[in-house]
């Protein structure tokens, strides 16, 4: 069993590294004369760092990469069939699937936590869990879901589809790509270990001074998220280089599929802003383990500094989440409407506009924080400006659908739902961006409803559009369309019932992050809880359909959707090098209904003579 050997070996090395690290720090501390050499949180930091290195070396980085630095010959563990998903595999298709499956599992786990929370919140008073368990579950739900939202579409769909769509044989740095995935399991382990160290008490935002004084689980949170930030940055870097340098001949920027554009812009966001999260958490880490004073007001620090640095990342992060979702939705909408993507240039411009604006709006999360009054106006203005480029995405989506030949298969339904849901999520964003309304709404369930509408309604729906869209390509098998449609309608209705209702308790006076609330809000919360469970159960259909189809679904065609982009012009699943030969791009990917148009050709293949423009509808 190659798979077992590789993962178990790496985990073993990781454990050894962990204890070595603990001990190493302890020895250092003893030498420096600290009284309690073993007890500090800094030991955990040392253990984590050593453990991480051990894990990475064990999983394959040593063999395929690091040996090179010492002038040794590199080698790669080869595993057959499904087992390759458990090795340090550098094929972008394998990595994409690794990402997707991992994050679906994380999504389900975190969703289960949410269902637990909704159980407690079904009525006022404390029924099932304690305040501390609730806080822990809430924080873990939040951060796991944020991780899902940041990485599932980018790491999963992005890794799988981007090289295929631009006609490349792989990403620019395949080993780096594998590294970004294999950094994820330690992150997951660290986060899932937090309940055993007292639970995340701070929510996903980790505001100090609470986070500098709370229990030790915070240290794992910091380490995990710094690592996670690293994968975002390295992944973004890889995408940018891939998209700039590895496009097929003829794939000009104006012919780039819109999903690739969205990934490109997102990657810039990721490499630029993610450092903010890392710096913010690093400061907390230093305050905790090294006795520094970034956020202690008595010693000249300032807790607001954290909020600025944190939101400097975390606002752009919401666009890191949603832009690939938009790209994916537009992509699917064009193919399934059988029309050119409407206002393609405007959509690209919208992505760039969001890229530009997203860096100057962060303090809209801090309107009631007690930051100086002169900051509110500029951030209000910038925040509301961002709805203009976002509106252009809607222009593109609605224009494409209008008068189209809509093939309402599951991916299309999900893509249309993205637009539907995000209209609601975006408009409620305007309520929050207006300071006079935000003063009341801040930190209420209105905000919770807003961001579930944007993240779940926008991005997670897009994620499912992508999963159904590329499932035949990835697995070579077809899912059951009836079950998939059932999943869609069930999820769509459950989602809107849950989260539309959730606005109401917010306005009526229910603050977030509480396990208990005034009984006057009982009815509304019961309704939200019931619909939340309804929503949760829809994923059973999804899981059944996916697992069943992957094992014994009917064999899929190479191009079941009759789509034009390159990934459909190769086998399902594609061969290791993606295409039998280098494709050459001749036209726009979305030129449906344009006689004689082609997107790409394989010039040397006997079948693939490029039709000359004059051939009109004649083709070959």
């Amino acid at each position, binding site marked *: 069993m190659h798979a077992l050997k590789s993962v178990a070996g790496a985990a073993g090395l990781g454990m050894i590294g962990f204890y070595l690290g603990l001990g190493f720090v302890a020895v250092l501390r003893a030498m420096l004369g600290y009284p309690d050499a073993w007890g500090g949180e800094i030991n955990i930091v040392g253990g984590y760092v050593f453990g991480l290195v051990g894990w990475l070396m064990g999983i394959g980085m040593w063999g*395929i990469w690091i040996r090179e*630095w*010492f*002038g040794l*010959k*590199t*080698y*790669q*563990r*080869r595993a057959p069939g499904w087992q390759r998903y458990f090795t340090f595999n*550098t*094929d972008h298709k394998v990595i994409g699937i690794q990402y997707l499956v991992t994050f679906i599992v994380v999504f389900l786990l975190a969703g289960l936590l949410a269902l637990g929370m909704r159980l407690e919140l079904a009525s006022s008073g404390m029924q099932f869990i304690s305040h501390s368990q609730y806080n822990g579950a809430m924080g873990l739900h939040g951060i796991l879901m944020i991780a899902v939202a940041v990485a599932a579409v980018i790491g999963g769909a992005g890794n799988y589809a981007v090289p295929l769509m631009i006609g490349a*044989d*792989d990403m*620019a*740095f*395949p*080993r780096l790509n594998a590294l970004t995935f294999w950094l994820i399991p330690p992150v997951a382990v660290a986060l899932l270990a937090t309940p055993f160290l007292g639970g995340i008490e701070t929510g996903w935002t980790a505001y100090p001074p609470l986070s500098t004084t709370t229990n030790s689980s915070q240290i794992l949170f910091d380490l995990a998220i710094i690592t996670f930030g690293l994968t975002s*940055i390295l992944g*973004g*870097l*890889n995408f*940018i*280089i891939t998209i*700039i*340098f590895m496009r097929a001949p003829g794939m000009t920027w104006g012919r780039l599929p819109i999903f690739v554009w969205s990934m490109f812009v997102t990657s810039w966001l990721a*490499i*630029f*802003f*993610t*450092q*903010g999260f*890392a*710096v913010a958490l690093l*400061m907390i880490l*230093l305050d905790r383990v*090294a*006795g*520094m*004073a*970034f956020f*202690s007001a008595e*010693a*000249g*620090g*300032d807790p607001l*500094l954290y909020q*600025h*640095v944190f939101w*400097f990342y975390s606002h752009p992060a919401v666009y890191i989440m949603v832009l690939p979702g938009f790209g994916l939705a537009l992509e699917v909408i064009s193919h399934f409407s059988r029309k050119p993507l409407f206002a393609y240039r405007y959509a690209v411009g919208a992505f760039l506009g969001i890229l530009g604006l997203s860096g100057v709006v962060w303090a809209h999360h801090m309107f009631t924080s007690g930051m100086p009054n002169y900051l509110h106006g500029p951030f209000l203005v910038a925040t509301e400006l961002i709805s203009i480029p976002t509106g252009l995405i809607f222009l593109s989506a609605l224009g494409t659908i209008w008068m189209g030949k809509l093939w309402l298969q599951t991916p299309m339904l999900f893509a249309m739902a993205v637009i539907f849901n995000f209209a609601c999520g975006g408009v409620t964003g305007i309520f929050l961006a207006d300071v006079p309304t935000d003063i009341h709404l801040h930190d209420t369930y209105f905000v919770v409803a807003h961001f579930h509408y944007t993240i779940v309604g926008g991005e997670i729906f897009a994620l499912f559009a992508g999963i159904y869209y590329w499932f035949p390509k990835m697995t070579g098998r077809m899912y059951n369309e009836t079950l998939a449609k059932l999943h869609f309608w069930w999820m769509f209705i459950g989602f809107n019932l849950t989260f539309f209702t959730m606005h109401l308790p917010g306005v009526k006076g229910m603050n977030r992050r509480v396990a208990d609330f005034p009984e006057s809000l009982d009815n509304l919360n019961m309704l939200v809880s019931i619909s939340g469970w309804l929503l949760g159960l829809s994923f059973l259909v999804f899981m059944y359909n996916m697992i069943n189809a992957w094992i014994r679904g009917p064999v899929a065609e190479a191009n079941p959707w009759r789509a034009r982009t390159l990934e459909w012009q190769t086998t399902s699943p594609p061969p290791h090098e993606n295409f039998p030969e280098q494709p050459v791009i001749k036209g726009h990917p979305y030129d449906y209904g344009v006689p004689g148009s082609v997107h790409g050709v394989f010039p040397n293949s006997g079948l693939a003579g490029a039709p000359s423009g004059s051939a009109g509808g004649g083709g070959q």
Partner: protein
Amino acid sequence: MAVIAPAEAHRPVHDHLKLNRAGLWLFFFSESVLFGLLLTARFYLEGIQREELDQLLGLGITIVLLLSSVTAFTAETAIEHDNRKLANWGLIATIALGVLFAAGVGYEWSIAHFHRDEAFGTLFFTMTGIHASHVISGIGILVLVWVQLLRGRYTSRDHWPIAGAVMYWHFVDVVWVFFYPALYLVN
């Protein structure tokens, strides 16, 4: 088992270099946000105030680091002309100057009269510490590269590791060019 990573094998060499170089630049771009945020935090918390520092030492280590960039540059140009001997000495000098710089920072830490649990101390130790960690990793990379150079691995046409390590070294140097005045000179 032992197979060399195939995915990258069939791409032409120059293509590869271009990707590496651009990737490294992007990495610097991302890292400068890290350093930029630390700088911002420094001015956010303390304005343009600062504590008394050993000016002579500060100036000294700055010169040392700037010099090391020159020697690093020398090493790179030398290998471009297949002058291994000069490249060798260039790398050795760079590593030595780097160690000297790190030692200087360490000395500054030991004589600092402020403590890390006050605002300026927090900023000073964090900024110099994070920068020094980059210097030290840079030294590590240079040592690895230097060993490979001794084993004769590099030629004028194939010396990306040297070029990359030197680029990284320049970057770390440039960061210090911003940190030094922010920590030692403003006021």
